[in-house]
């Protein structure tokens, strides 16, 4: 039995500051087995795998490979132990061929023999049933082909333990089927495979066993044969934690937005939004739940006029009673109509604010078009910056202090504050409290609640289900670009939303 175990983790703990990313996690993968690692966003799946692949070093705990205790201090160590990780973002050089990417950085003879390399790759490709031309350039490849290159790269380097981080997130259903066939072939060849995912139907389809993490804690491992969608969901989302966020009752609901069957796709033809229809009301907080990458960002961008729709339309019911079909307007005009979009990106300063400018300059970004003549008017934005600083308690030495140097909470207050200063009638916010500590989060909640009470239709995308359930009036759930349901946040349970989030209907394509 000990012989059969490819890799085992025992009581792995990793802390970032005071936060436990992983708290005494243990798991085990055998040779010739596919283990699914299941958990919500932020449950510590990726951190755990990064410790196996040498990107982080665990604070406590033991890792055993082939029954021997090892210490993995760098990606190189991980390589040498035969561990290969396939990230969500492929690390490939675009102008090179598949074969060149596969041998990149390997030791060997100085002069390359590409013919021999290609033959070796072809042998691997044939053995497992990949679909790959070693001489094809990366930039001509589809996402699925690039993923294939990554997998073959790991195999070529002799990886026996393969870790795939969300491998199906970017694939079409047909490509997923092909990937699973290849994974099964590799399993039958005796390799150990860990697949990180949150798509339950895929877990049930491909894996032999499932290990579940929740908020950094190891919940348990079950045989896939004995698991069902609902039993896994229960383990994944757990019990609801009350956050006690102040939630005023909505009143005076007025229809502000009608979204009719909107769809859009990315450059690869994968549907990011699929026939989504809903209505949003002034005076109401509409939450958007979903596993990351389910189309939340695209939904907000569609309303703000930043996404090209392949189908459907967005109708805006203005306060004066006139209706606008937003498809005829560009993003600047939509902004002008009173639909404000404040997206908090992962790196906060990537979108929306210019880090090296002060608050005044950043206010000016929104208003410079109103100015007449050549010179910008500094006075109004400065007044606005002072006002936001005072009203929202932004802690900054001066309104001219570069926002890059402010803390995350303050940056977020500026971002949200700027959008609400223009008295919007629809406010789109994404991840408003991402990365904030508790007191800053509550300040942001209060800001948004204030807007809601003023009759603004607030649409709020967030990852944290507990927060959505305590903060919103209604929650719409997206899954794979489809709207899987709209629930009343006061009555819905966490399991209900969790199920909707993973309710993948089998594609009939």
């Amino acid at each position, binding site marked *: 039995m000990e012989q059969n175990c490819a890799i085992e983790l025992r009581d792995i703990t990793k802390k970032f500051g005071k936060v436990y990313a992983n708290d005494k996690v243990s798991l085990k993968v055998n040779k010739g087995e596919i283990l699914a690692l299941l958990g919500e966003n932020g449950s510590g799946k990726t951190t755990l795998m990064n410790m196996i692949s040498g*990107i*982080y070093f665990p604070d406590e705990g033991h890792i055993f490979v082939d029954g021997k205790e090892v210490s993995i201090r760098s*990606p*190189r160590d991980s*390589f040498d132990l035969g561990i290969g990780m396939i990230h969500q973002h492929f*690390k*490939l*050089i*675009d*102008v*090179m061929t598949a074969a*060149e990417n596969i*041998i*990149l*950085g*390997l030791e*060997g*003879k*100085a*002069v*390359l023999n590409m013919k021999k390399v290609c033959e070796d790759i072809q042998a691997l490709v044939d053995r497992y049933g990949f679909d790959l031309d070693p001489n094809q*350039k990366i*930039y001509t490849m589809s996402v699925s082909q690039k993923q294939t290159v990554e997998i073959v790269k790991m195999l070529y380097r002799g990886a026996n333990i393969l870790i795939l981080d969300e491998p199906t997130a970017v694939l079409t259903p047909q490509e997923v089927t092909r990937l699973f066939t290849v994974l099964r072939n590799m399993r039958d060849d005796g390799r150990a495979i860990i697949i990180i995912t949150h798509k339950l139907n895929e877990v049930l389809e491909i894996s032999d066993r499932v290990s579940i993490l929740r908020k950094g804690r190891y919940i348990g491992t079950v045989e896939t044969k004995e698991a069902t969608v609902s039993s896994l969901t229960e383990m994944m989302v757990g019990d609801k934690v009350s956050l006690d966020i102040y939630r005023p009752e909505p009143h005076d609901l007025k229809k502000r937005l009608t979204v009719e069957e909107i769809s859009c796709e990315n450059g690869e033809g994968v549907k990011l939004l699929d026939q989504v229809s809903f209505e949003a009301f002034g005076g109401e907080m509409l939450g958007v739940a979903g596993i990351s990458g389910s189309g939340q960002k695209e939904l907000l961008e569609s309303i703000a006029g930043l996404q090209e729709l392949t189908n459907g339309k967005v109708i805006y019911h203005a306060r004066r009673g006139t209706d606008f079909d937003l498809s005829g307007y560009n993003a600047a005009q939509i902004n002008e109509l009173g639909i404000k979009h404040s997206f908090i990106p992962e790196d906060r300063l990537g979108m929306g604010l210019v880090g090296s400018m002060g608050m005044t300059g950043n206010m000016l970004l929104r208003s410079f078009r109103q100015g007449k003549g050549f010179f910008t008017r500094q006075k109004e934005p400065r007044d606005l910056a002072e006002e936001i600083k005072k009203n929202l308690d932004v802690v900054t030495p001066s309104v001219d202090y570069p926002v890059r140097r402010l803390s995350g909470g303050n940056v977020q207050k500026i971002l949200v504050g700027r959008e609400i200063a223009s008295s919007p009638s629809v406010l789109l916010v994404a991840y408003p409290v991402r990365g904030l500590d508790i007191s800053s989060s509550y300040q942001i909640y209060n800001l948004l609640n204030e807007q809601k009470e003023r009759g603004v239709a607030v649409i709020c995308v967030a990852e944290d289900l507990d927060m959505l359930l305590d903060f919103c009036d209604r929650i719409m759930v997206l899954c794979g670009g489809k709207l899987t349901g709209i629930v009343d946040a006061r009555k819905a349970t966490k399991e209900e939303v969790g199920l909707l989030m993973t309710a993948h209907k089998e594609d009939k394509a």
Partner: protein
Amino acid sequence: MSVIITFIQKAIVQGICMLFGADGEILTEKSGNLNLGVPGMMYMGGIGGLMAAFFYEKSTDHPNAFAGMVLSFLAAFCLAALGALIYSILTITLRANQNVAGLALTTFGTGLGNFFGGSLSALSGGAGQISVKVIGSAYQAKIPVLSEIPVIGDIFFSYGFLTYFAIIISLAMAFFLKRTRWGLNLNAVGEDPATADAAGINVTLYKYLATVIGGGIAGLGGLYFVMEYTGGTWSNNGFGDRGWLAVALVIFALWNPINAIWGSILFGGLYIIYLYIPGLGRSAQEVFKMLPYLVTIIVLIITSLRKKREHQPPQSLGLAYFREER
């Protein structure tokens, strides 16, 4: 006929200087470093070679031509490489802005060259009085026998050793970049250092080596100018804009050393064509001197219209590499 032969000869003579610069810069840019210090490094190479030759010839009564060549060659390479090393420390280790650091190196190198060039002139009694006869003529020595062949000998074999060395370097570099493991790794560093790093390539080492060696090669362009072109003397600011033409040639050659060979001859020809067109006024001459730059712009337009990825500059060119936090 003889005018055409002379023109071709002169075009090649003009081009070799740029070819060294372009080869060095191609190697540098393949690592993702945009070193705009090429003109400066060429000055440094030139003055380094000249000083070594000058003091060697002064130090003995019977200077050995071969020893003098080796000394001046090494001095030129090392001084220019030193310039590139300063640039590397600034941009790779300290992550300073590459454009600023490169332009500063150009200013520095030009000043250094002119300062010591002026001093050497003063030592030897006035401007244009520097003489390193033995070594200068050794650099200028043509290939015996072969250069005697009419026409063919004139076009192909009537140059000094540095001319052939430039061609050999270009061919060797093309082979290095396309066919060797290190070349592949270097390409990866210039395209996407994060990916190269993840693949286990020592990004910093590759960047340093490529930039320093590239700088040294560019410096040989200066040596060529001082020794073979002018025969071993110095005139302040004598290089003109050849250093910048070398940078333009890199773009024209689409980062391929083989293209740089014929490109340099074309550039050299365009650079002096005004001398061969009768009846040009002073201002018209200047217009003709713009031709190489004009050709570069046209090539840029055509390649960006064709959108072929292989013809684009290395993707991370000009960007400092920060390893992600671990």
